[in-house]
């Protein structure tokens, strides 16, 4: 085996990608698949398998976006194949345990978070998805547009609508 081959080994960057993104992809896929963690695991695994075949240069600089895009396609494939699109549209019941308590504020904060998560769970599915990609995964409108195949304007509109609604409902719930 010659060193050049090894250097260009397409999979070399995969382990760190797995370490960095596996959990957030898993969460994304689980949601897309209506809470089916086993299937989500398969989807994420497929995603990384695809990544291994990818020349590094093709994904460098937008690795997260690439992973989410592929993961989404895989998840939708699974749903399509199994005719389970309906489950996808049901909002997930949210139960949140305060993962990182901050003394003094923990109780209040976790209540706030739980309330807001419930509201997010009531949004239309496409709005939930873009809201999560934006605020949970930190993607820009443009990146979300490429991941979800909505236009940038559409992404902006979905986020705007969702944020306005959440803001109003959230404010109404606050004492």
């Amino acid at each position, binding site marked *: 085996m010659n060193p050049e081959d*090894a250097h260009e080994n397409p999979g070399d960057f995969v382990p760190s990608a797995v370490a960095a993104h596996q959990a957030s992809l898993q969460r994304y896929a689980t949601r897309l698949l209506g809470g089916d963690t086993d299937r989500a695991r398969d989807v994420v695994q497929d995603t990384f398998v695809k990544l291994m075949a990818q020349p590094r240069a093709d994904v460098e600089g937008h690795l997260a976006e690439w992973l989410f895009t592929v993961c989404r396609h895989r998840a939708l494939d699974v749903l399509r194949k199994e005719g389970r699109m309906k489950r996808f549209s049901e909002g997930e019941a949210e139960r949140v345990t305060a993962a*990182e308590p901050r003394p003094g504020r923990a109780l209040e904060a976790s209540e706030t978070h739980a309330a807001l998560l419930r509201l997010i769970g009531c949004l239309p599915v496409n709005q939930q998805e873009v809201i999560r990609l934006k605020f949970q995964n930190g993607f820009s409108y443009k990146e979300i547009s490429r991941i979800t195949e909505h236009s940038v304007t559409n992404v902006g509109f979905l986020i705007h609508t969702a944020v306005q609604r959440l803001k109003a409902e959230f404010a109404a719930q606050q004492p």
Partner: protein
Amino acid sequence: MNTHDSHETIFPADPRITAYAFGELEGDELALIEAAVQADPALQAAVAELHGFADTLSLTLLREPLPPVDAQPLPEQPDLPIAAGKGIGGILTKLSSFYYLAGGLAAAGFAVLIAVRTESDRSAKPAHEAPAIMELVDGPAANAVAAKKTEAPTTTVGGKDAGLATVHFDAKLAKQASESSAARERRDADYLSVQKVVETDKVNASNRLIEVERPVAPAMAPPPPMPVQASSGSGLGAGKAGGTARAVRSQVVADGFLMAPSAQPSFSDTPAYEPGSESYDHPADNSYHSVEAEPLSTFSIDVDTASYANVRRFLTGGRLPPRDAVRIEELVNYFPYRYAPPAMTAKNPVPFAAHLEVASAPWAPAHRLVRIGIKGREFTTATRPAANLVFLLDVSGSMNSANKLPLVKESLRLLVERLRPDDHVAIVTYAGSSGLALPPTLASSKSEILAALDNLNASGSTNGAMGIRLAYDIAKAGFVTGGINRVILCTDGDFNVGVTNREELVDLITEKAKSRVFLSVFGFGMGNLKDATLESLADKGNGAYGYIDTRREAEKVFVEQAEGTLATIAKDVKIQVEFNPARVQAYRLIGYENRMLKKEDFNNDAVDAGEIGAGHTVTALYEIVPVGVDDDEAVRPAVDALKYQKTEPVAPKPKANDSPELLTVKIRYKAPEGDVSAKQEFPLIDTGMKFEKASGEFRFASAVAAWGMLLRDSPHKGSATFDQVLNWAEDGLGDDDGGYRAEFIQLVRRSAELK
């Protein structure tokens, strides 16, 4: 969008306001909405509200528990063309909760396999899967098995070359799984070079697996092996020759391979140092350039001082620093020098003054040493502009030790005490979740700020990217025109959630730096400091990088030099030196290896360079081989002239000039909020001064540079010894305001003992 219609009424509920608040607008649309927001308090309120709500959303969503993933195997055998021919060695393959690293394989049969048991070892699966990996290794399985057996606490390391790399895992470090990309790239490089070396050294194919024994106590630890001096060029294959000399001393070597350099210290169970996964870039020392071929030398200034504090940490911990942790320009620039500030005439306010000096180079008396000293304009608390500061604080679990988060809090308390009542402070934290711990607050409400600082505690993993975005959003929302707008990032640099790739983080910062918000990066703690990542973040973010290891250091940065830390007086400061070929044969810049620019970059305002803060000094040293010095290694041609063939010179030699000048220093810089650069020029004439007659500042700076060369084991260190460094430094002690130079002398003594 009709951009002509500047009277278009925009309502707070306009989707573009939402997009604007989230930083998603560009071009004309951005200009239009920005103008509308500036003009309309109602829109400003809407934007602020959206910012706040976005924070709440981020905070909430980031707290959604991540699913456990450690039970998920990657595909056992990818059904892809990837592995077969190309070799999967070097890929870290995760099988259930085992990490196997198979690397370095050649026909001769060199195999390294490292198995690490992670904390959550729940699966019984891997036992039968391990052979699948073995098959991927070309070498004898016996070697691989042998390696696998050596589990923690003994550390098994694989081959190594001139580069800086190590294959090091520790069972107690689940964190290793999420190593930084810098470390990963280094490992890739290492893998490559291992192969190369193995191919050149097939004779000793056995015994390539070395166990590094844990030292009993830090004081008894052998000095860590220093990475070998990289030879010029690719560095591949240079390890064998270069490695041997040190290898004997460091005792972690077999067959000429230098093992486990201290970028990831091997002695990972040694309590005083914490399990190490520090990573550094490894540039080679700047070499000599012939004036005839390259009359111009161009570089970006650097006022970072992190390397000095980091080196000090190693030395006080009883170890020599790894070679690549030593950046000479940062050592030299750590010390305040008494250069006169620029004269402040109202007519022609220049942000800095330059002070040039030349004398003989103490470590090579035939050579001349040129010092370029730059002093920035000074501010006082009263005269500096108002500040809009966002503290971006890493509160992840890795910050949970005494010299990290508690020191961060203490440092910022010091800074808050120095602020003016009209300054603003906000605090953004980031861990697994990112959040606003303190909305923008006037510094007059000091107790509120201090209480928010006190309330922070460390937990969770580190999602740097989210925090960076939020911090910049808040800084932009409170932007003070003409003032100090700065994000102050305090972290150990261990970004392990979200965007962890160094390039991606750097891209993010580069993007955010366009907002004219400056960034200061402060590294804290030890053990998993990602030095290279932090430096490049500061570099791209128009900012400085400092390393805080003690309260003393915090006082220097946040109290004594608070104005310089906060107020930038010029940005993109570049230096270009033109050498006179009638006086100079060859030159080399000492340090600044990662700050070199192309000669065209000097006049190109699009090329980013270093910033200079109020009152800061910047010092650069050139070692020069004057005309008339022959038979000097620095000017010896790579190839002798041919005896039997006449070679015409490609270009006629430039006519000798009779200018008495040795060189001219040109400095380009931009105002902190400007886009167009200005230039200043300073010629230098060599009066033939001896080193002994040079100024104390000159001699002290030379001593620091020589010390750096010794620590780096630079090929250019000449006759310098630690004893000489001590003498030069003591001569140049001066009045030593702050006692920094006295401390330096202690460190030199320490390093001499350890060497």
